[in-house]
C-alpha cells in the first residue's frame, strides 16, 4: 500500500542486524568449539595478511652467528641452521601454506561446482561420462595421486597446488551434482520455469543459493585436509622449494635436528596442526548451524 520511508527502512535494517548478531551469539554459546575454530582461522588469516607487520625479522636473512638458538625472548621460536628467525619463517610460511590451501579450495570448488552443476543440468551421456571420470580420480588415494601429479609437473609450490586441486575436484562435482539433481525437481524450480525463467537464471538464483550450504561446509572441512596434503607434498620435496618458508618444508628440514634442536621442526608442525584443527572445528560448527536436522556431531 505504501512504500517504506527511507528512515524507517534503515531502522528495520538496524533491528535486523541486531537480531542477527543475537542469533550468532546464541549459536556460539551453543558450541564453544566452533568459536575456537573460528578464532584460529581468524588468527591465521591475520597472520597471512599481516605477515610483514608481525614477523620481527626478514624470514630469509642468514645470520650465521646465531645458528640453532633455542627459543628466547629475541627469537620466539629459536633459529635454524643458518640463523634465520623461525618465528618469522613460520609467520611467512603461513602465506605459502595457507595461501596455497585457500587457492586449492577455490580452484577445486569453482571447477568442481561448475562441472557438477553442468552435469546435473545437462544429464544424459555427458553426466555419465563426467561421473565415471570422477570415480576414477576418487578411486586413487588422494595423496598418492597428488604426489604423482606433482612429480610429473615438476616440483614447485604452484604445481603441487594444481595437483592437490585436481585431486579435490571430484568431491565438489559429486556434491554439487547431487544438489542440482534434487533441487531441479523442487517445485519452486519448476514454478520458475512456468514463469519463463532461463536455465542460466535458474542456475544462478535457484540452484546455486540452495546448494551453497553443504558446499561451504565441505570447503571448510576440506581446508584442514588440504593444509595437511600441501604440507606433506612440501615435506617430501615436491612442493615449495628452498629458501621459501613453507610449513611442510620447514618441518622437513627440521627433521634432521629434531633430537637436539626440538624447536626447529616442532613449531612449524604445531602451526600445521593448529590450522588443520581450526578448519575442522569451524567446518563442523558451520555444518551444525546450517543443517540443524543433522544435530551436533559427537
Amino acid at each position, binding site marked *: 500500500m505504501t512504500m*517504506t520511508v527511507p528512515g524507517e527502512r534503515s531502522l*528495520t535494517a538496524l533491528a535486523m542486524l541486531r537480531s542477527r548478531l543475537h542469533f550468532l551469539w546464541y549459536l556460539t554459546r551453543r558450541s564453544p568449539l566452533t568459536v575456537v575454530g573460528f578464532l584460529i582461522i581468524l588468527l591465521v588469516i591475520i597472520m597471512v595478511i599481516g605477515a610483514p607487520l608481525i614477523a620481527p625479522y626478514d624470514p630469509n636473512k642468514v645470520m650465521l652467528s646465531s645458528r640453532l638458538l633455542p627459543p628466547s625472548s629475541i627469537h620466539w621460536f629459536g633459529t635454524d641452521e643458518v640463523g634465520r628467525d623461525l618465528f618469522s619463517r613460520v609467520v611467512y610460511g603461513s602465506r605459502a601454506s595457507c595461501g596455497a590451501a585457500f587457492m586449492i579450495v577455490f580452484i577445486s570448488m569453482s571447477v568442481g561446482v561448475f562441472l557438477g552443476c553442468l552435469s546435473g543440468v545437462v544429464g544424459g551421456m555427458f553426466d555419465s561420462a563426467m561421473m565415471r571420470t570422477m570415480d576414477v580420480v576418487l578411486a586413487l588415494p588422494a595423496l598418492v595421486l597428488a604426489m604423482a601429479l606433482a612429480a610429473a609437473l615438476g616440483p614447485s609450490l604452484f604445481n603441487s597446488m594444481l595437483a592437490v586441486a585436481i585431486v579435490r575436484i571430484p568431491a565438489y562435482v559429486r556434491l554439487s551434482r547431487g544438489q542440482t539433481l534434487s533441487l531441479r525437481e523442487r517445485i519452486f524450480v519448476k*514454478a*520458475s520455469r512456468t*514463469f*519463463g525463467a532461463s536455465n542460466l*537464471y535458474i542456475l544462478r*538464483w535457484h540452484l546455486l543459493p*540452495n546448494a551453497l550450504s553443504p558446499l561451504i561446509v565441505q570447503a571448510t572441512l576440506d581446508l584442514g585436509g588440504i593444509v595437511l596434503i600441501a604440507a606433506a607434498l612440501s615435506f617430501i620435496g615436491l612442493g615449495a622449494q628452498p629458501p621459501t618458508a613453507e610449513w611442510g618444508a620447514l618441518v622437513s628440514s627440521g627433521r634432521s635436528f629434531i633430537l637436539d634442536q626440538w624447536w626447529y621442526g616442532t613449531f612449524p608442525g604445531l602451526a600445521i596442526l593448529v590450522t588443520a584443527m581450526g578448519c575442522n572445528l569451524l567446518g563442523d560448527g558451520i555444518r551444525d548451524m546450517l543443517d540443524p536436522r543433522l544435530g551436533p556431531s559427537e
Partner: protein
Amino acid sequence: MTDIGMKPHALSIENLSLEFPTYDGAVKALDGVTIQVGNAEIVGLVGESGCGKSVTTMAATRLLPEGRYKITQGTIRLFGRDPTVMSDEDLQQVRGKLVSTIFQEPMNALNPTIRIGKQLVGVIRRHEAISRAAAETVAANILSDMLIPEPSRIMQAYPFELSGGMRQRVLIAMAFSCNPGLIIADEPTTALDVTVQAAILRLIQGRARRTGTSVVFISHNIAVVSQICDRLYIMYAGRIVESGPTRAVLDSPQHPYTRALLRCLPERVQPKAQLESIPGTVPNLLDPPAGCFYRPRCLEADERCHAKPQSTTLTGGQVVACWQRSKSQTHVSNEA
C-alpha cells in the same frame, strides 16, 4: 461456445491423445481430450487424482519432461500458436508472458533463499524491460491487489516468514505479474485452510475478470470450481466425460460419474449420515477396460458400454460422453 472468431482461443486442445512409454507398455494418460478456453473465460477442469487434469495443462505449456511422453494424436494451440514445435527461447517468452501457472503447494513453490520482492521482480523484469525500481512498484501494486497488507514489508521477507495463504497470494501475484492472457491454476487451494480457500478463489476470479485473463482452474473438488467457473470439464481416466456451462452441469448432471461426484460432496450430506464414495478405483491406464472407462464402477452400465461412447451435445451446450444419454441426443459429434 466454439465459434472461431477473429481472435484465437486462449487455449484450444483438439482431440489430444498422449501417452507415457514405460517398461510395462504405454500409459495412455490422455485419450481424445478436447478443451476450449475462450478469452477472458474461466474454465474448470475437474476429476479424481491421476485422471489427467494436470497432464493436459502441462502438455499445453510443454512442462512435461521432454522425451518422456508421446503425443499420439490431436493438436494444441495456445493463442493460435503450437507449443509443441516452439523453440526453447520462444517457450521462455510464452511462459510467464502468455501463460502462467499457480501451483498446488505454496509451501514449496517459492525459493527459500531469496526474498519475496526479489523473486517477484525477477519474474517481472524477465518479461518487461523496466528498471528495478519500476518493477518493485509494479510488484508492490500487485501484492496489494492480492489484499496483502504492507506489501513493502512482505517484499523484504523470506518465504518461510509467511503463512501458506500469504505465500499462495504471493504466487498468484507472481502469476499475474506479467499480465498473461491465460493462467493455469493447478489446485491452488488444495493445500490451504478452508477459511482462506474462498478468499483465494475470489482473488483469482477478481483479478482475472478485471484484466480479462482466461483461467483454467484445476481441482478435484467440484464445489470449489463451480463457485468461480463459467464452464466445467469433467475428466475421468484421461477422457472428458462431460462438459458444459457450470449451472447446467450442476443442475442436471448427465454423466453417471458427474452425478457420483456431486453425491460425494460432504456439504450435501446430513450430519452424522454416511459419506458417499464411488465404489471401485480409477482404471489402470496401462490396460484400460474396453469401451467406457467408467463402466466397471458405473451403476447404469449395460451391454452398449463395452463400446467407446460418442460425445453427445445436448441443448444448452452440455456435452456428455455416455451411451445412456444418447437416447435423448440432438446430434452426435466428436467435438465439444
